[in-house]
């Protein structure tokens, strides 16, 4: 029972419906388009659109019929374990801190000062998402939106080559050896789709067109935007407009993450905030942007060491791990020589952590 004025229709149509006496959605139930167009003096396509909107809205609210049936939390957990696997990285400490890897279906923000390794982590994830499922990976494709021009092919090839070498050292049974034939540097590069956006209008345009691309490429499991801050921090005289655009952007990204079952990784810069005479380093783009991503990772230096701190996450504790950037990519600090075996998680009643075989 919703008032007609709250539906997402054009204002002139709503005025005509209300003046014809249809004030609530219950008044429109059971009508044929021809009847509605006569009574409310609408055109046929307009009447059809009204009835479709009502059907969709009513179906969602009352949970009766249609695609949007309600789920119990247990069903959701089972769905998550089967369908939404996490993206394992080559850094076991980061995987452990995130509870198995980068979760698919959520938005993750990576912030840090320049040079600390945000782009390196993004490039590493771009390769990690493609690791075949028999190695514990997701085996998906990815889209990389580059706004700074830091997607340099030399580095991508380095990381891809190291990833292939790491997996080929782990290949133990026939299934894995067969998978390695399709996991080469060339196939990794062919599954990475690159877009360059030079300003925020191009970025917004690209995000409007992306759902169409994702429907055509259902294997995409990761979207990286490196970085949102670069295009949104320039030339913005009207900060309220910027906040509004960022909120819209955040909603779009969250919707895309859930609908297309992919992880969305966004990179952010740091800025100084003065508070009571003290200056503090905080993520850029403002306070309201901080609510948008589900998980926030802060990369920072502690002396000569690089640390990654998880400072917002609904499912995990705040923790800090140490990492290093090597010629192979984003790795654990104090990495031991023997690569760790990663077995895929099978759906059982045991918690996932005990399934993983680690040797080090």
């Amino acid at each position, binding site marked *: 029972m919703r008032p007609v004025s709250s539906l997402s229709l054009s204002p002139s149509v709503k005025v005509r419906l209300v003046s014809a006496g249809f004030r609530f959605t219950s008044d429109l139930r059971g009508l044929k388009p021809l009847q509605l167009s006569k009574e409310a003096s609408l055109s046929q396509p307009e009447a059809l659109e009204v009835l479709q909107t009502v059907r969709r809205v009513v179906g969602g609210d009352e949970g009766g019929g249609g695609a949007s049936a309600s789920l119990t939390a247990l069903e959701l957990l089972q769905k998550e374990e089967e369908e939404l696997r996490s993206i394992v990285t080559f850094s076991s400490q980061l995987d452990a801190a995130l509870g198995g890897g980068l979760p698919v279906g959520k938005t993750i923000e990576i912030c840090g000062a320049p040079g600390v390794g945000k782009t390196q982590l993004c490039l590493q994830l771009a390769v990690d998402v493609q690791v075949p499922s028999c190695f514990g990976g997701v085996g998906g494709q990815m889209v990389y939106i580059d706004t700074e021009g*830091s997607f340099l092919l*030399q580095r991508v090839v380095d990381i891809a080559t190291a990833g292939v070498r790491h997996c080929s050292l782990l290949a133990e049974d026939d299934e894995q050896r067969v998978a390695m034939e399709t996991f080469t540097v060339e196939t990794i590069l*062919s599954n990475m789709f690159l877009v360059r956006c030079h300003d925020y209008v191009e970025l917004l345009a690209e995000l*409007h067109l992306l759902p169409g691309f994702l429907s055509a490429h259902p294997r995409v499991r990761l979207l990286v935007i490196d970085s949102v801050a670069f295009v949104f921090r320039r030339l913005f005289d009207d900060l309220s407009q910027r906040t509004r655009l960022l909120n819209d952007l955040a909603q779009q990204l969250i919707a895309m993450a859930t609908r297309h079952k992919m992880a969305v990784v966004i990179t952010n810069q740091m800025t100084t905030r003065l508070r009571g005479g003290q200056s503090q380093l905080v993520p850029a783009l403002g306070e309201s942007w901080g609510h948008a991503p589900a998980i926030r990772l802060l990369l920072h*230096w502690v002396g000569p060491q690089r640390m990654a701190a998880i400072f917002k996450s609904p499912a995990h504790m705040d923790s800090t791990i140490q990492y290093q950037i090597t010629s192979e990519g984003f790795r654990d600090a104090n990495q031991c020589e023997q690569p760790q075996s990663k077995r895929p998680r099978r759906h059982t009643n045991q918690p996932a952590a005990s399934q993983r075989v680690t040797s080090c």
Partner: protein
Amino acid sequence: MDWHQLDLSPRITAAVRRAKLKCVQDVLCVSGLDLQRLTGLSRSDVQQLITAAATACRPHPPVPALLLHRGECRRLESGLRLSVGCPVLDELLRGGLPVGGVTELSGESGAGKTQLALQLCLSVQYPTQHGGLNSGAVYICTEDVFPSSRLQQLISDQSCLRSDVPPTLISRLQFSDHVYIEHTADLESLQVCLSRRVPLLLARGAVRLLVVDSVAALFRCEFQASDWLERTKQLLSFSSTLHHLSQEFNTPVLCINQVTDVFNSSDDTLGPLSSNVSPALGLAWANQVMVRLMMRRLQETVARGNQRSALRRLEVVFAPHLARDGRDAAVWREGVRGLTGSECTDVQH
């Protein structure tokens, strides 16, 4: 914006005109509901409008990185690098300066930054098979007068520095004709230069390297401490212009920066420092830079024949494709040369 160019029904085009929406930006920066209210169109019509506007803005779909690797997508990455003119330093930079971003070179006075910049102005003029870009350079001086006598000296000794290039090729190149020099004493003239004269030279293909020596000079002296908000705005506007030029014309941009002393060594925001100085202009500028290089002047000297030079070190502070590493170098009559392993032993303390 000619709305007829987009593939929209006349009803939508008329509504857009009535709502006085002038360009694609107006359509994309407004939410769907606001657009419905402005134009009086229904939801599906507004979706069509947004999709058409977005397609006009982004004519190319996402491209697989494999095409870039094979060199089939020049639009996105050419893989070109601008050689510095010395094989040791090129090895540090994995080929040279990347062509599509802003590279910063900072260091104390006398470290050799201007020397390296002058050397790049000459190496850009060589053909691509010798690490150049077959074009000239624009050198914008903001503090000192351009060292033209030093440039002449470097030109006359090019065959000594570039032993990998056939001497006939070197003698055929008219180096001084292709280095365009601009002096800008304040921010306003710098903006004018970057928005009028430099794009003309780039569009004509006369230059493919832009050097700004130095960025710090204008931004440090023109603003009081309390004007830091205005300074940041101007800095962002300036770097935005540089990026735009770099990407539109596929041109490397080299910015020379000064350094500032670091008092509180526990402030490791930007990583461990190899000396007690850090690049000027702070975090706001550091966020705009893709490759950050630092040149240091050390205490030792190195001798070669009858020449002596203070030892320098060129370091990579951060870059997307380079490791944090450095190479020893020296400044000779023919230019800046990295020292190979055997030469390093000739260093005297």
